[in-house]
């Protein structure tokens, strides 16, 4: 009976995940089609645009508003800045550095308290998918590698052992954990005024390797999100060309 329930929950979750991926694919196709109408048809998506524009087009820095809002509105989130190099408006080697934290106090159901805070980084590159690369706007796809090394504190008020009934303490302190992960992302960015850009990205994250310490699992992983083998993530960036 319990096995059947567990299996049906897994099937339901897989179906929702599949459905979500299908919706995302349709949205991407619509966006790509829309962009193909609004941009010059003279150039290919990934083709190097041969023109007199120099290779090095500057450096930009940005701040992720979505992670900060998430931290302010929930028990976990991250503050993140990024820096990128613009190569011919087509390729954008990028570094993202952030500080993620979670502070979940005395859960109303389980009584568990969870704390972690640690820096993380991601490194990778984006490619501008627009046919005309030099408009200042971009639709991009990219890859990232991310890593964080963090410590968790998990605790609970003493509670009775369900059989022996003696009070039991539960928790770990400063348990060292780490995680490596990869991200595939898709995003869109618009030039708003002067050097100011606004843009968002949707990210599919997949855990590559992880050490969760003695408890075998953790909850929030800085820069990655809550613990699953895959996650969907997002950023909303304010970017300034410098």
């Amino acid at each position, binding site marked *: 009976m*319990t*096995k059947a*329930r*567990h299996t049906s*929950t897994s099937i339901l*979750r897989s179906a929702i995940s599949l459905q*979500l991926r299908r*919706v*995302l694919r349709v*949205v991407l196709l619509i*966006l790509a089609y*829309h*962009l193909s109408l*609004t941009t010059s048809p003279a150039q290919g998506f990934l083709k190097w645009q041969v023109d007199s524009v120099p290779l090095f087009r500057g450096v930009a820095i940005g701040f992720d508003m979505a992670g900060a809002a998430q931290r302010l509105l929930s028990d976990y989130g991250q503050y993140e800045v990024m820096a990128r190099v613009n190569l011919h408006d087509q390729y954008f080697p990028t570094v993202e550095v952030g500080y993620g934290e979670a502070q*979940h106090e005395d*859960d109303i*159901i*389980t*009584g*568990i308290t*969870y704390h972690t805070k640690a820096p993380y980084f991601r490194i990778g590159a984006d490619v501008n998918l627009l046919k005309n690369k030099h*408009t*200042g*706007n971009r639709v991009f796809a990219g890859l990232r590698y991310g890593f964080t090394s963090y410590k968790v504190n*998990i605790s*609970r008020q003493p*509670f*009775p*052992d*369900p*059989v*022996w*009934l*003696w009070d*039991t*303490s*539960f*928790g*770990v302190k400063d348990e060292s954990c780490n995680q490596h992960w990869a991200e595939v992302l898709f995003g*869109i*960015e*618009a*030039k*708003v005024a002067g050097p100011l850009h*606004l*843009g*968002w990205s*949707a990210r599919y994250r997949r855990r590559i390797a992880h050490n969760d310490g*003695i*408890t*075998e*699992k*953790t*909850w929030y992983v800085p820069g990655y999100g*809550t*613990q699953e083998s895959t996650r*969907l993530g*997002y950023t*909303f960036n304010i970017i300034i060309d410098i």
Partner: protein
Amino acid sequence: MKCQQPYLRFGKLLGLSFVIYYLLFSVSACSSIDCPVENTVATNYAIMGADGEAATLADTLYIWTRRADGQDTLLNRLTGKDSFSLPISYAHPEDTLIFYITDSYHQETLDTVFLKKEDIPHFESVDCAAHFFHHLTAVRSTHYGIDSITIANSHVNYDQSKTHLNIYFKKRY
């Protein structure tokens, strides 16, 4: 026909795509609580015959321990079975279990089993109840009715398909 400025068109596209993006992530943000349904942590004992093969318990077995509320029974009147399951304490370094065996001729034996272990706090999520896994490090007993007990699998966790201990009772006539 007058065309729109490219920046304006792109701004609209950014806005539209942000709405779609927001809706998508609003849906995905409705995360489920994914605690394991099978979350029993207990020790499984296999009853073995003197020949080392699995055997069925011919006598009647009672198992007691000392609990905080003064009650003591963990297992009552087990007979005709080839295995049984016992709870394991969350955080005692050693569990003490009293095995009382009686047969149809009212012959009785009383043995004490000492199960030494390491207790490992196991965490799933802040939404899931606290549990402990265990690593069995040693087992010993008195030998009135019990011949021996051995550890077959030292890691005690949610996997209840494993046998953790093999118990050999003395042959009775």
